[in-house]
């Protein structure tokens, strides 16, 4: 027997998944409260005990973990033009599994830097300029961070021509600086792999130690990813397949959490029709976006904020005082619905999270009359033909009618310009195994893929 123990240190729960790799079965799962404030291993031991109660004694060949405990990975993305290097910087952060708490364009002000320090940002990504392009903004911003003696790791991923000058600034002010390839070497060209690798390695080297997660490595082998990155790996594997084991093709994944709603899409998203011209920044095959203002508990107020007075009124007339319910959920973050009414409100909130978050993720089309007839621009990814939409996160997993929530991803007549999925299959990550499978996929991609295909069920 060859057993893997896969651990996900979440912000609330520590989740364990035991897998027998030889027989390709999930032996059991369990969870306990994350105890990163006192000692992270307490929660881990509790979860492990309850796991072993279910499975009987087990010996693990490997124990690996991902973590989003203690606030996960908080980043500040800095670029020059909002639609270009700022957007590229955001995508690099999201792809690495981070939350982007602050976004800045052009020159940083003293106030901006103060905010970076106050918000306890873990890593700063500094971009700006194509290779050989604009120099002033990155040099100014590096200098400003240096003068403020910001002691946060800074990843420089801007104009290549400034790399030497940036190194000089990093040395001069003794900053924890890292210099890597430009994330937008040419206009609209996105190159974020290098940035993602370095962000992950800083996370594992510095950030998890500072957050008290590293301690756990005395009992387990290692922490290898931020949790969202593990999920991204799993989703990418599930979409692409591995060798002879086929994947599902293009997919969308929505993860509705207490504090954020994450949307993942796997696919090129290229235009389907011939009369459509693609504009804007390149899209990564595996794309992740995070909405920090949309979540079922901590961020519940953000769900009702974008709703118009009329639509709030409509809900009130139907018997749902959404503002009151949102306020309640924000104050009681461990609230679990017990009555059908409470479940229905959670379902409504879940649907709104998905709907709003997907609007921000999906590509859009715009028509233009030209002397050659009607032509179309496409910005972002065309996801109309994705094969499946996968739901994960407490609200979807525990709901009686998860399709009601997941259907909010689909094409709708009130948002005709958004390139949303037409007729996807609806799937559910019932056992909450995606992050664990992302971890497993590093050593055993085929097993991880087969287990996902088996355990992510149709609804």
């Amino acid at each position, binding site marked *: 027997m060859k057993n893997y123990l896969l651990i996900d240190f979440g912000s609330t729960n520590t989740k364990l998944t035991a897998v027998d790799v030889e027989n390709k079965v999930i032996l059991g799962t369990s969870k306990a409260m994350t105890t990163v404030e006192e000692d992270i291993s307490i929660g881990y031991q509790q979860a492990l005990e309850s796991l072993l109660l279910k499975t009987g004694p087990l010996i693990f060949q490997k124990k690996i973990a991902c973590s989003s405990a203690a606030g996960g990975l908080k980043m500040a993305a800095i670029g020059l033009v909002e639609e270009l290097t700022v957007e590229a910087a955001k995508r690099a952060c999201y792809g690495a599994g981070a939350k982007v708490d602050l976004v800045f364009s052009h020159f940083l002000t003293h106030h901006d830097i103060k905010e970076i320090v106050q918000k306890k940002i873990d890593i700063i990504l500094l971009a700006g300029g*194509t290779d*050989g*392009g604009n120099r002033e903004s990155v040099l100014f911003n590096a200098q400003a961070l240096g003068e403020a003696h910001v002691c946060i790791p800074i990843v420089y991923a801007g104009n290549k021509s400034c790399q030497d000058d940036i190194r000089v600034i990093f040395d001069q002010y003794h900053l924890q600086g890292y210099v890597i390839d430009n994330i937008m070497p040419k*206009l609209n060209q996105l190159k974020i792999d290098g940035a993602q690798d370095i962000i992950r390695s800083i996370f594992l080297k510095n950030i998890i130690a500072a957050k008290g997660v590293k301690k756990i490595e005395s009992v387990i082998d290692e922490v290898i990813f931020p949790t969202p990155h593990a999920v991204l790996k799993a989703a990418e594997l599930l979409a692409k397949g591995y060798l002879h084991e086929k994947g599902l093709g293009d997919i969308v994944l929505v993860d509705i959490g207490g504090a954020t709603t994450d949307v993942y899409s796997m696919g090129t998203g290229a235009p389907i029709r011939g009369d459509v*011209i693609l*504009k804007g920044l390149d899209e990564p095959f595996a794309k992740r976006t995070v909405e920090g203002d949309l979540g079922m508990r901590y961020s519940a107020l953000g769900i009702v904020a974008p709703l118009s007075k009329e639509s709030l009124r409509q809900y009130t007339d139907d018997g749902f005082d959404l503002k009151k319910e949102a306020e309640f959920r924000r104050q009681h973050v461990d609230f679990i619905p017990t009555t059908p009414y409470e479940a229905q409100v959670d379902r409504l909130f879940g649907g709104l999270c998905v709907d709003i978050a997907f609007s921000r993720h999906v590509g859009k089309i715009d028509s*233009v009359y*030209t*002397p050659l007839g009607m032509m179309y*621009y496409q910005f972002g990814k065309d996801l109309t033909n994705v094969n499946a939409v996968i739901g994960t996160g407490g609200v979807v997993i525990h709901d009686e009618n998860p399709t009601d929530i997941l259907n909010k991803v689909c094409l709708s007549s009130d948002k005709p310009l958004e390139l949303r999925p037409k007729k996807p299959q609806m799937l559910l990550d019932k056992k909450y195994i995606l992050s664990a499978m992302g971890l497993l996929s590093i050593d055993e991609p085929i097993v991880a893929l087969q287990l996902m295909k088996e355990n992510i069920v149709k609804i």
Partner: protein
Amino acid sequence: MKTIVIGVIGADVHAVGNRIIEYVLTNEGYNVVNIGVLSSQEDFINAAIEANAKMILVSSLYGHGEIDCRGMRDKCVEAGLANIILYVGGNIVVGKQNVADVEKRFLEMGFNRVFGPGTSIETVLPLIKADLGS
């Protein structure tokens, strides 16, 4: 290497001339950032900022150039590109109008040089070199 942003402005999908311009300017040793057809003023300006371009060369073939180009200089000033050199060329106005009148109108709009229908890039090249230095 000096950078020039080129593209076709507005709801205009004429791609061929723009490609020829790219080819010629690249051969002349310029760093050409081609933003392609159906481009807005903002697309040109954003590209020029990120790529640190010294010149924007706007093409328009379908007759609506005058509307599409209006206010472009002001936006450049607003974006910190007050000194960028703006060229425009092609069938930039509706119908057959007096080239001198058209040129005057575009110069007043803040373009540095204006070229009427059928001007080849080879004719323009010496002026680009003069304005940018080769």
